């Protein structure tokens, strides 16, 4: 037992060292591209201003002013109908703590928080890949994440890395049947992004394992975990109601981003029709659904459900930011590892494509192109 524990510790230590190496490589890669882009296009070379854009600015507003009482003008939202309610509280709360701890400006604290969770995400992801796919796959898994096509969002004050880390942690805890801890991870996830609540449904799919084990006395813990898994979202909704009057304002304010929530099925069907036209976000969404079906065929209903839900929910409101949502879904990257790791040539080709595309996205990011948002 002691030997096993010690061996596990060594393995985790190795994984952490690997995660640190990949994290540094990812940071250097992104910084190098930022330097090249700013030099090539004569853009301002201030690192923080260049990195903290778009959503990061909204998180900055939460850190500095709190959640708005009223909608207001904000850059492209000239109608004055936008507000920071769309941005869930877990990430800015943690970044606020980082800002206090390090005594830094809000923008820098947000970027540091993103980066910290990138490191943790890589560590958690290679641990999960090792447990599910074998030790020989973990380095490839780490590389896929560290050179994700949308890696810019891990270095720019976005919530994606926190979301990825909590998703991976949640699945690791579900594997260990640590129901209450998995519920807490789910609760935090539901306070991180609007689709975080889908983890509650994933959690339910694991009930069959409990039924199969027939171990007495575990159901109360499982039910408590389930109750905890949506608590973050419920607390945020209660806060919004008492703060500005509308518990669903985070969804309602999506109109400022040209997203509709009125008749999701209709919008979804129309977008599926449109997907047959050459359109990168739609094609990617279809590929994501295909991966969900692939997981379902392999009887991994938990991954299938998370991918399907996290694709269909945003897709039913529009296509904006769809590539980012897909490339920051942990099961999507895990599926890619499973599919590609069997063939070294395919793996190498994918990594070349991924790193190349991440370079392209970094260029579009610093040129303020909506493709990167």
């Amino acid at each position: 037992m002691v030997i096993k524990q010690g061996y596990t510790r060594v393995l985790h230590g190795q994984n952490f060292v690997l995660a640190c190496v990949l994290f540094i490589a990812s940071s250097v890669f992104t910084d190098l591209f930022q330097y090249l882009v700013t030099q090539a296009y004569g853009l301002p070379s201030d690192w923080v201003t260049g990195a903290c854009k778009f959503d990061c600015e909204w998180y900055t507003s939460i850190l500095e002013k709190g959640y708005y009482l009223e909608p207001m003008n904000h850059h492209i939202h000239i109608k004055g109908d936008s507000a920071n309610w769309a941005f869930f509280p877990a990430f800015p709360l943690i970044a606020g703590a980082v800002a206090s701890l390090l005594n830094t400006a809000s923008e820098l604290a947000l970027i540091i928080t993103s980066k910290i969770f990138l490191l943790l995400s890589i560590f958690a992801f290679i641990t999960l890949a090792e447990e599910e796919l074998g030790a020989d796959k973990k380095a490839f898994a780490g590389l896929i994440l560290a050179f994700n096509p949308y890696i810019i969002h891990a270095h720019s004050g976005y919530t994606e890395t926190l979301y990825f880390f909590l998703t991976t942690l949640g699945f690791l805890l579900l594997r260990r049947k640590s129901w209450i801890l998995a519920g807490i991870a789910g609760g935090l996830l539901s306070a991180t992004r609007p689709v975080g609540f889908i983890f509650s449904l994933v959690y339910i799919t694991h009930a069959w394992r409990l039924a199969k084990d027939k171990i007495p006395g575990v159901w109360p813990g499982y039910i408590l975990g389930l109750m905890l898994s949506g608590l973050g979202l419920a607390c945020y909704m209660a806060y919004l109601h008492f703060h500005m009057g509308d518990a669903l304002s985070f969804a309602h304010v999506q109109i400022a981003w040209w997203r509709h929530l009125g008749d999701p099925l209709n919008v979804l069907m129309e977008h599926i029709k449109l997907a047959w036209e050459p359109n990168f976000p739609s094609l990617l969404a279809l590929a994501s659904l295909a991966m969900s079906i692939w997981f379902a065929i392999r009887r991994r209903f938990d991954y299938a459900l998370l991918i399907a839900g996290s694709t269909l929910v945003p897709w039913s409101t529009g296509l904006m930011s769809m590539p980012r949502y897909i490339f920051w879904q942990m099961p999507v990257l895990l599926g890619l590892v499973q599919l590609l790791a069997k063939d070294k040539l395919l793996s190498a080709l994918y990594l070349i494509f991924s790193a190349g595309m991440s370079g392209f996205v970094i260029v579009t990011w610093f040129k303020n192109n909506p493709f990167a948002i």
Partner: protein
Amino acid sequence: MGASLIIFLFYIGVAYLIASPNVSKEYSNYYIKRNTSDWRPAKYSGSIREGFDFSRAGQPDFIQATMGLSSLERGGRWTDARLAPFAKITYQEPFSGELCLILHAVAVRAQTGKEVIVRLGSEEKRFITDTDKPQWYALDFRLESPAKTIEIEPSAFETVFGRYYRKIALGLYHLIIIPGKCADTEIHLSKK
């Protein structure tokens, strides 16, 4: 189980909060019901006789609110059935007696040759959009009781995608209301 029960009761409380928002009517129409695309539009000085020029940003100060109209585009604004089945324009002050309602509008292909219902208060008039080119339409109303809302209800729409997903039917350019009968008014539509 006690902790689970407490959290469950909390969820019920949150469900109640979701069902009972405490917001202004303006917020409710724009964000929750989504029947208008106007969020606190800028107001400009205008007269009812000059009319509501849909090609201008904002609204004249004699307009209280609109519903079922898409955002401003070059030339005017479309009715959008996705927001509301009919366009509704509410004036600040009510109208009464004999009135001439003049509408400059264009119909989408699907609406061509089909009926449009125009309601002013409880009175109702109909006309056919016989072309997909911009046309002027003049309708006589005799109001039995004061009214300040105009509803324009097309029969058909076309679904269009762009930044917004919309169901458009009539492109509105101008809406004028003049006291008296249309035949007696000094506005000659043919000269427009």
